[in-house]
């Protein structure tokens, strides 16, 4: 937790005691000595702001939620609002540095509307993707808590309850992402902007993906994927090319920038303008006509080239939502995290999850076990009617 500048009274630590908040980033200065000292007595670790303890990386993120337009223009009621999420960044860092835990520095912006559920989504956005949001309170709430104001204490209670929820479900961070498309890149240098934005925008396109760093491709990297995207500015190594084409021969789809080069195959129809599609073996290669410059278009095109037929999660009436589909190491349980980034949870929302499952339960911060979800099996998926919920729901699906 980022200790508020105004909290000089060590007595406030009584509120932290017994919560999952176990590390405090306390501002420098002698006025906080008492806080540091009392925290250590309570068994809470203390560090300097901006400096992560060993084995942890602090990444600069954004305040999660709907980003409202500043120019007065915006999406209509049925348009897709812009959502700030740190999920992709945490996942990327975990994929590149699996040995390092990720803490996200994304404090609430000043002078914005923030309530208890804003903190819920901030914590859930990071926790569901395997990171930890560094608790950072907005000034009015911090001031209110310091004087034990009821409204602010309610926010604190909600915040710590959310953190506790994810602490209880810590094993979910060991679950593996389930995706339909693999994003192959080195994610650095000339490729950094495009590949990072692509990951960010894949969520907006509703496409579930796995992050595949170029130098870590193995025989199992493409398992269960339907497509692989290659947009790096340089050609793949001969070995990587061989591995990806092997995936295509077996029935996969490669969506590649022109740098990939011509592929021997027979022409096939393209569902999306701007791509030349070749049938290769049992699969297809969709080669872009032009060098990709717009990650948004690439993400949207990928969703169509793969086809929404294979959507892992479909939402209705969900507003500004995202989902993260994960599978337990023993592959006996899937957890699908549903995040609703608007100021309140959805009403009459329905979600369809692909896969065959024998039981579905829900859990939220307020209701740890929802057994009586309205379920409708649909061939290779299950449709779940969500009750009125707050901004986060985990669906636990038993294989």
């Amino acid at each position, binding site marked *: 937790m980022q200790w508020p500048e105004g909290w000089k009274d060590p007595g406030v630590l009584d509120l932290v005691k017994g919560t999952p908040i176990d590390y405090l980033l306390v501002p420098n200065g002698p006025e906080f000595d008492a806080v540091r000292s009392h925290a250590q007595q309570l068994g809470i670790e203390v560090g300097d702001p901006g400096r992560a303890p060993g084995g942890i990386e602090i990444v600069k993120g954004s305040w999660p939620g709907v980003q409202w337009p500043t120019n007065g223009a915006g999406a*209509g*009621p049925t348009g897709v609002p812009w959502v700030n999420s740190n999920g992709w960044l945490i996942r990327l860092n975990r994929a590149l540095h699996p040995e390092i835990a990720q803490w996200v520095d994304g404090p609430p912006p000043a002078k914005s509307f923030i309530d208890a559920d804003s903190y819920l989504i901030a914590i859930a956005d990071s926790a569901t993707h395997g990171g930890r949001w560094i608790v950072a309170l907005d000034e009015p709430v911090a001031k209110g808590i310091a004087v034990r104001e009821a409204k602010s204490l309610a926010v604190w209670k909600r915040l710590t309850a959310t953190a506790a929820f994810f602490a209880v479900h810590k094993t979910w961070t060991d679950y593996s992402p389930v995706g339909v498309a693999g994003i192959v890149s080195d994610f650095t240098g000339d490729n950094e902007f495009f590949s990072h934005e692509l990951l960010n925008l894949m969520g907006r396109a509703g496409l579930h993906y796995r992050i595949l760093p170029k130098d870590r491709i193995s025989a199992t990297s493409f398992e269960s994927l339907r497509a692989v995207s290659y947009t790096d500015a340089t050609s793949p190594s001969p070995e990587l090319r061989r591995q990806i084409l092997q995936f295509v021969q077996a029935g996969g789809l490669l969506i590649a920038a022109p740098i990939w080069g011509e592929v021997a195959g027979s022409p096939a129809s393209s569902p*999306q303008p701007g791509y030349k599609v070749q049938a290769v073996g049992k699969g297809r290669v969709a080669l872009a006509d032009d060098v990709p410059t717009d990650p948004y278009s690439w993400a949207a095109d990928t969703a*169509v080239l793969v086809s929404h037929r294979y959507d892992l999660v479909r939402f209705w009436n969900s507003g500004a939502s995202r989902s993260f589909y994960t599978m337990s190491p023993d592959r006996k349980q899937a957890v699908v995290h549903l995040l609703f980034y608007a100021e309140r949870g959805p009403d009459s929302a329905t979600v369809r999850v692909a896969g065959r499952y024998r039981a579905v339960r829900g859990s939220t911060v307020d209701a740890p076990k929802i057994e009586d979800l309205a379920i409708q099996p649909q061939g290779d998926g299950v449709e779940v009617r969500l009750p009125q919920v707050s901004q986060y729901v985990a669906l636990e699906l038993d294989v």
Partner: protein
Amino acid sequence: MLRNHTRRDWLCAAASAVSGAYLAGTRLASATEAPAGRVALARCKTYDPGEVTPALRKMFDQLGGLGKLVNGKTVAIKINLTGSPTYRLGYEPLENTHYTHPAVIAATVQLLGMAGARRIRVLESPWATADPVEEYLLQANIEPRDILGAARNVEFENTNYLGFAKKYSRLKVPSGGYVFPAFDLNHSYEDCDVFVSIAKMKEHATAGITLSMKNCFGITPCTVYGEGAGVDEPSILPKGGRDLIHAGNRGPSKSAPQEKDPKSPRQDTWRVPRTVVDLVGARPIHLAIIEGVKTMTGGEGPWVSPYQTAVEPGVMLAGLNPVNTDAVAMSVMGFDPMADRGTPPFEQCDSTLKLAEDVGLGTRDLKRIEVIGARIAEVRFDFATLRKRRGSMPERPLGMRG
């Protein structure tokens, strides 16, 4: 009669055949002159293909059979997929409330195929996207293969942009038009011999009702007529809805025919009904189908107001004249098809039916329309009373304008 003509010739002939009044380019026709034909009416309680297909077949037979209309022809079908595929009325599937149900589309396609249609194109301009219609349907949880597999040579095309053609097709309004003299449309609306509109039976926030004619509002590509349309030339991709038609706050891309009178009213309740009539004049409907097996009250989609409900009227209609067919549908809904502005469901808007009748597209006078099959009184589902009970007409939401 239709042989040895180009599609464009035939399109004009079909439009002109409706009424010679077009030739004068003014409002000449009246209710007594406008064409009157048969409208078939059927009860259909479910979307079970075992019930939908026979009901449609019987209606088409009552209209004289599909064979002489479509045998050897390319048929285009405009369906209604209004709004985002991720927006439901409560937990109801979209096709049970505001989308044309795929079972009705598939059964129609099947029957058209059996009647000898050479090629069948299923058309829609989905909200703010150039993605294939199939992808749009999948997002709504609708299986496009059920439609594609219902007959031979069936395909979808997204008509919200240029699509598979090299240029837009310019279709003129034979009457001269209320608002627009002609439209630049996706080629599919010209490259067909027979045009079918399959609508959902609904009320509409701006136009009072949306039936087989209002369904054609969506044939306009948003690359030319949308809020993101290019100023000089059409944009490549569609963006947003058709605000410029609703509000008249700007013109279509300059490459397209402009409004006849930029000083005409800017109210959507004036503009939308007239533009619909212009569109139906430019792109005549040969077969109008309205399905109200399941639908919703209170507006054209769940975004309109919080007082909307899913309902099951259990009825379908078909006719060879869209004005006649819409008139019967209005009566089935408990409204008076002769109603004018100020009377439900046109409390605040002009009647699309009256405007269509005025230019000779067809009569709305039930006394002149032969209703066959079920009787109107037998299948009536009283939207009008529900509207009265709600205490208001549908609100006109800002932002969502088809």
